[in-house]
Structure formats: structure tokens, C-alpha cells
């Protein structure tokens, strides 16, 4: 009985780390000591800066060495006309293992599609024709739509009122980082938590 309880206790951190993360939208090892959840809106300029300038550094310095498990979550804001559509496409692409490529393309071309509304054009050119067909179908699938909505509901429950909002979790401690991220300070935070 004691052995059973010990084994269960040893497994709990792994369960907590990977509870409802979409593996197609996650990077690194689920058993990493720190979990970073990024709630982001594809039409948000600060999210673009985070994705293009900060997350690559986090990936290189913390995800690759196995210190951080990075989970992406969708939080399309109501005032952004096309961000829900973008989130649906990105989540659909995750089913094909193409989330990062589609996310990169969406943020890279943000200034174009947020004005002309042609979100699909930004997504399509990083997919093969076969992949594009599948993503277009999946993006309308109720399971994809509900996954995006689950992320939104989780964000609302956590009190998010701004994007990007990232949650840095180590054990039972969960710390929100809201808005533009200074990498030196984030690094100091992560290094402190890893001690």
C-alpha cells in the first residue's frame, strides 16, 4: 500500500504538467520542471513580438535543455475581427503537426490579414495542397472549435484580460506574466525558479 501511494505521488507532477495540453501545440518535455502556458491572440501586436522575439530565446535556452515545457493556448480577443478564425486554422494545423509553421506565418503576415481579412492566404502558403485541404476541413470540425473555446474559457477562468498573458508554473506555484515580456527579467524569474 505504501509503495502504491509513493508511486502515485511520484506520478502526480507529470499528470499536472500535461493535464490538458494539446501535444500538437506544445514544445519540450511534459516532465520539465517548469511549464509555461502562453495565452495569445494572432491579431495582437504584443503577441507577435512575444512569438517572434522572446519565445525563440525561451526555446533555445530552456525548452531544448529540458527545463521548460512550452504550451500554446488560444485567446482570441472579441475586438479582433479575424483572430478566432486564425486560432481555428492554427489549432486545425496542430492536428497535422504544423502548428508552429502556421503560427509563424500568421504572426509574420499579421499586418496584412488583419486589414484585408484573408487569413487563409497566410496559412495556405506554408502547407502542401493535401495539408491545406485537411486543415480547411478540420478548422470547421466541432472538436477544433471546442478546443479553441476551451482555451478561451480557461483564460477567462484565470482572469485574463489582456494578451499575451503567460503563466509560469513550477510545482504548485503559478505566476502570471502579463503584456510585453522583458527577456532578461523572464530569464531571471526562470533561473530563480529552477534553483
Amino acid at each position, binding site marked *: 500500500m505504501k509503495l502504491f501511494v509513493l508511486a502515485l505521488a511520484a506520478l502526480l507532477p507529470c499528470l499536472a504538467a500535461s493535464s490538458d495540453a494539446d501535444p500538437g501545440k506544445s514544445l519540450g518535455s511534459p516532465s520539465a520542471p517548469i511549464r509555461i502556458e502562453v495565452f495569445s491572440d494572432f491579431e495582437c501586436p504584443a503577441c507577435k513580438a512575444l512569438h517572434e522575439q522572446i519565445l525563440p530565446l525561451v526555446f533555445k535556452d530552456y525548452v531544448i535543455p529540458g527545463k521548460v515545457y512550452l504550451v500554446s493556448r488560444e485567446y482570441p480577443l472579441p475586438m479582433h475581427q479575424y483572430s478566432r478564425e486564425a486560432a481555428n486554422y492554427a489549432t486545425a494545423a496542430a492536428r497535422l503537426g504544423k502548428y508552429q509553421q502556421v503560427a509563424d506565418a500568421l504572426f509574420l503576415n499579421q499586418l496584412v490579414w488583419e486589414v484585408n481579412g484573408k487569413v487563409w492566404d497566410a496559412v495556405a502558403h506554408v502547407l502542401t495542397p493535401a495539408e491545406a485541404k485537411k486543415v480547411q476541413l478540420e478548422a470547421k470540425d466541432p472538436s477544433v472549435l471546442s478546443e479553441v473555446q476551451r482555451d478561451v474559457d480557461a483564460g477567462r477562468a484565470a482572469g485574463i484580460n489582456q494578451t499575451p498573458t503567460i503563466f509560469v508554473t513550477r510545482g504548485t506555484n503559478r505566476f502570471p506574466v*502579463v*503584456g510585453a515580456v522583458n527577456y532578461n*527579467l523572464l530569464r531571471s524569474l526562470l533561473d530563480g525558479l529552477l534553483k
Partner: protein
Amino acid sequence: MVSSSRVFRTVVLVLRVALGAVFAYAAWIKLRQPWELFAMSINDYGVLPDWAVRVVARTLPWAEALIGLALMAGRWLRVSAGAASLLLLVFFGLMVRAYATGMEINCGCFGPGEAISVRTLVRDGGLLAVSLFLTWTSFRGRRRAA
């Protein structure tokens, strides 16, 4: 019949303890989290260099705690009320500047996650008004004794 001076003293006492509690609470919120989180809020205002952001993030919560405790205990009132007024003046000024220039950043007043809005401006403006009133009463009381 209750005299007006007694009512006045009661009002001052209530405001002093309340303002002290607000400062102590603000300090507690910041001190129970890694200092880097408060540093990020300070950094968002874009007025201090990196090294100063780190110094302020590590020291300001302790100053808030001391001010809060002194106000609640009614000790060193001219210094504690004056310091509270000075801090609130700086905070409020920065918040007004941020709001007026359309910066969508967090207040940083009570931890991360509270965007600067009309509500936060009214709240902090109210705290500043209370603090200035208490500073005035602390100096007034001293002058009368002299």
C-alpha cells in the same frame, strides 16, 4: 453630543488605518511573489533603465510595508504620511501619463494582471487625496502643539 473635533479625529484615524492597510496589502502581494513579476510591471512604464528597475522592484515593496505599518500604528506620521503621498504622487503621475498616451500596460499596484483604466485611476487618485489629507493633518497637528 459628539464634538466636531472628535468626529474629525475619528475620520483621520479611520483614513490613516485604511491607507496603512492598503499599503501593507500592496507590499504583501508583491513580496509573496518573485520580484521579477513586479519588475516587469515597472519596466512596462518605460521610464527607468534596467538596473534601476531591478533596484526599485526589490526595495519598493519593503518601503510600502514600512509605510503601511507606520500609518496603521500611528508612528512617525509626518514621515510616513509624507512618504505615502510622495509615492502615490509618482505612481499616479505615471499612470495618468500611461493612460493618456494609450499605453496598454498593467498598473502593478497590487500584483500583475490589472490593466490601467479609469477605475484604477479613480482608485489611486482617491488614495492620493487621502494621503495628502493625512499629510496635512500630521503637519497641522504638529503646528498646533507648537
